[in-house]
């Protein structure tokens, strides 16, 4: 990872602080609760690699703070379903998929950190079908970059809407992976 993502680059500002992220995660958890109650018919699926952290946090909040006893939580890798295979210079490298439950007739909540072009979500919608036919699929995203969609895809639950221009990058960092919780808007 280059230095500029470590917080040393001039053209970056803090979009959300650790405290704000925490408040937003709690609100998203409450919205999920409102629609899914006991999570008996609902499964949470974090999109690899970065949606995993959001999904982990939400599951933890739901269990520890709102007393949901059991939540099916999985991680979905979408590499083999992407529409840009052979279009870039680099080989697309996969990460681990671990879904040890059936999604047949379940309500699936796809979870990612940043919604940008919508292409990852398109790939995830195809990929999840390999695990059965869900009764319903919803989308939760921590950051929703408006006006940058390539596909008609919108989130059901959003943390914060951002009007970032295409030259900018939204970088979400997590304590467990990057040392601290913070979201930057970076000028490339």
């Amino acid at each position, binding site marked *: 990872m280059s230095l500029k993502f470590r917080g040393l680059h001039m053209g970056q500002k803090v979009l959300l602080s650790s405290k704000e992220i925490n408040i937003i995660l709690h609100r998203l958890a409450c919205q999920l609760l409102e629609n899914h109650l006991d999570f008996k018919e609902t499964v949470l699926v974090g999109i690899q690699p970065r949606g995993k952290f959001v999904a982990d946090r939400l599951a933890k909040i739901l269990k520890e703070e709102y007393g949901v006893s059991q939540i099916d939580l999985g991680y979905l*890798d979408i*590499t*083999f*379903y992407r529409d840009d*295979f*052979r279009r870039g210079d*680099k*080989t*697309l*490298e*996969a*990460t*681990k*998929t*671990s879904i040890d439950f059936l999604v047949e007739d379940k309500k699936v909540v796809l979870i990612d950190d940043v919604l940008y072009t919508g292409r990852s979500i398109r790939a995830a919608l*195809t990929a999840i*079908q*390999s*695990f*059965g036919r869900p009764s319903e699929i919803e989308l939760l995203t921590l950051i929703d970059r408006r006006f940058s969609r390539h596909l008609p895809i919108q989130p059901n639950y959003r943390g914060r809407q951002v009007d970032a221009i295409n030259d900018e990058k939204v970088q979400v960092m997590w304590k467990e992976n990057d040392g601290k919780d913070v979201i930057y808007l970076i000028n490339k």
Partner: protein
Amino acid sequence: MSELSVKHLLGIKYLNEKDIQLIFETADHFKEVINRSIKKVPSLRDITIANIFFENSTRTKLSFELAEKRLSADVINFSASQSSVKKGETLIDTVNNILSMKVDMVVMRHPNPGAGIFLSKHVNAAIVNAGDGAHEHPTQALLDSYSIREKLGDVAGKNIVIVGDILHSRVALSNIFALKLQGANVKVCGPKTLIPKYIESLGVEVETNLKKALNWCDVANMLRIQNERLDISYFPSTREYTQQYGVNKKLLNSLDKEIVIMHPGPINRGVEITSDVADSKQSIILNQVENGVAIRMAVLYLLASKIK
């Protein structure tokens, strides 16, 4: 982001250790994919692959074809026995005719060593060697090492003995390259007539006593006698070969430890291993076959991603 250092898979000789690890990590993901209820991914939907087999094959051909289909590639199959090769067409002409039908990759088995290397220099497609004479069979060696890694956790530092007809075996040569690259200790075991004279220059030891070899090893890879390649008599009789170099349950039970038994297939039951060994808990022969599909998916995926 990493990628393979090669554009073709012609032999293990041309790979480095990082390539092997990348193939294994990618194969881990594909192994998860082929255990889903829907076992197919769309990655190679715009790639056409020709399987060109100038020599007989069951397992390898089926395994490649399945791997290609699981990746959503379009597949055409070609067997020399039903082709214009019989009418005198050259290898380059045959392949170029196939390629003019817009084929991106060629999986080829050929009786001549180096056929894949030759082809890669003359045609514009990614070549995967599915066995070239007694030279190399890289995907077999990859799936063998992958199966060892799966069973024992790691290949580095493990003792592997390859038993049988080393002289005529492409599986043996590719396995030696792959295992040495990963830091395993390798011995070959068989009648002296079936062990190449300069085999030790590859960094392997020769052991002619089967029991000693088995007592030393963690894994025994049992090879078939390649009767179709035996031009002269290399040992007195099959029966004598079996007595000297065949593995049976009694021999396995007499060892100091429990070793893993592998076989690339096809098995000649009762010659190099008995049925009770082939079907025992120590045998990972069928795991090798399952892993073959995942390994070939990984190889095809990684090579296809380099086609521009």
